[in-house]
């Protein structure tokens, strides 16, 4: 009962700080601005008589969320250390686990809200401007849910880094580089894993004669243990954003499961290490 009360109080305090946090509103504003920019870019082909597709523009928030939230989590959680709030919370009797979990919950909620900052303009303005989504509502909702869980997993990783390091600037550098690294790793893995196993037969002309090149195995095709390792890495939050976009309509269940796994592992490790940390 007491532990429950402790977490409730911490959550209330953290959410109260969130609504007043400039970095949170900047994150929401950045996501909204990118959403409006994407809509403007998507509207260009429509002006020239072509068709603008809303689906592709909508999904971009999955790619952006990690990058934007890396800065937010380091600032928001870091100020708990720099302002001495963390020590105060522990000093008044809150358990370290409760402090950790309340910070994680607020960062994850902020991540989902920042994503909503992208989604709302896209739906409210995008549908009248570019027409309805071409994918089914159930696929759209499933994709959005998977992207939200992945965002929460990214926040869990950033929170772990921020809770274990008291230097805000160092945390910001690590989180930003990590977010971009995972994104580029995802793009690389997507390219390698979508290589065809066989290069199809092809006709070509040489010296006026039509020649045929037989189908042959693709040397760039990844197989065996290497493929298994690549597939595991491709499921990491951040890398997963690329996979979510590539398989938007039929997102496999293993993606949100992998994100939940990442949340469980990072939170367990982070909370365990935070309990031993000297808060000075």
């Amino acid at each position, binding site marked *: 009962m007491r532990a429950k009360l402790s977490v409730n109080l911490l959550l209330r305090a953290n959410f109260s700080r969130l609504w007043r946090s400039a970095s949170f509103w900047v994150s929401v504003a950045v996501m909204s601005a990118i959403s409006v920019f994407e809509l403007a870019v998507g509207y260009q082909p429509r002006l020239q008589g072509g068709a603008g597709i809303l689906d592709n523009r909508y999904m971009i928030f999955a790619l952006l969320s990690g990058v934007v939230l890396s800065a937010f989590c380091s600032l928001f959680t870091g100020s708990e250390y720099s302002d001495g709030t963390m020590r105060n919370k522990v000093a008044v009797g809150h358990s370290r686990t409760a402090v950790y979990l309340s910070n994680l919950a607020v960062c994850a909620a902020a991540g989902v809200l920042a994503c909503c900052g992208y989604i709302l303009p896209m739906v409210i303005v995008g549908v009248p401007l570019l027409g309805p989504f071409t994918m089914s509502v159930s696929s759209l909702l499933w994709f959005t849910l998977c992207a939200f869980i992945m965002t929460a997993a990214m926040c869990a990783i950033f929170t772990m880094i921020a809770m274990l390091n008291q230097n805000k*600037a*160092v945390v910001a550098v690590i989180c930003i580089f990590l977010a971009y690294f995972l994104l580029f790793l995802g793009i690389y893995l997507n390219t390698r894993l979508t290589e065809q196993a066989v290069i199809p037969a092809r006709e070509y002309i040489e010296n006026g004669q039509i020649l045929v090149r037989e189908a042959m195995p693709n040397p760039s095709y990844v197989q065996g243990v290497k493929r298994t390792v690549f597939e595991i890495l491709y499921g990491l939050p951040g890398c997963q954003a690329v996979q979510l976009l590539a398989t938007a309509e039929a997102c496999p269940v293993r993606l949100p499961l992998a994100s939940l796994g990442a949340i469980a592992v990072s939170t367990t490790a982070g909370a365990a290490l935070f309990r031993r940390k000297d808060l000075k």
Partner: protein
Amino acid sequence: MRNLLHANFSRLFHSGAFRAALAAEFAYALFIIGVTFYSIYIKEGGRFGLEEPLLFAFGIAGMIPVPMLIQAPFLSVYLGTEFSEGTIRNKLVTGRSKAAVYLSNLLACMTASVLLAVLYLALVGAAAVPTGLPLKMPAGQLLPLACYGLLALAASAALVPMAAMLIRNETKTVIVTLSAAIFAMFLISFLTARLGEPEFTAVYDEWGRDAIEMLPNPSYLQPVPRAVCRFLIDLLPTGQCLQISARSVEQFWRMPLLSLMVIAAATGTGLLLFRRKDLK
């Protein structure tokens, strides 16, 4: 001014951020040396000239501006501590002018930035010259290119004190400068891709073998936007460094002039705003 410079350089060489930047630059140089050796001895390629690994001091093949990604967080942390530890206020209290404080910080940053690149050039030069790689670019061309690259790095470093003096928060400065460096990288890639659009696109016959018609490419940039894109790439220090690393510099004479312009504009703006700033 001399005392300020002495104090700044002394702090620079004792700073953990500078040591971290040296370690990062060292690791980058080792990576390029490793890739060069792999290409020469294992892949038995080595058809590139000695200038290629040397000019990677300014970025990887016109794509990733590594020195900017190293110096942006390092210089932000280095300058941020001036504010967080009250050093700036102490300097002013002891009678130094704001201009002298700003300029001494600027000089320390520019020197550190150039030193990091010189470290890279020395390491890669010492490792690559004994391999017998031929210099495919005339030395009379390579030397000015390297000097222009160092000037562009100094120009990039001149932007950090401006940001740091205005933001005055170590973590926020790190986030802003690092995000700006990454944004500049994407912007240069986008602008370079737009400049590379062909003027006409071919329409092939139904078998896809022969071009039957050439149509104007709507994405081809007309003279005025083309000149603006070109100017932007040449103006931004990141653009200059990436051009040098890819050895695709078109207008040699323009780059040092634009770098000097960036240094002058950043210093002028920074000084003006810093003089009006209330340091509390």
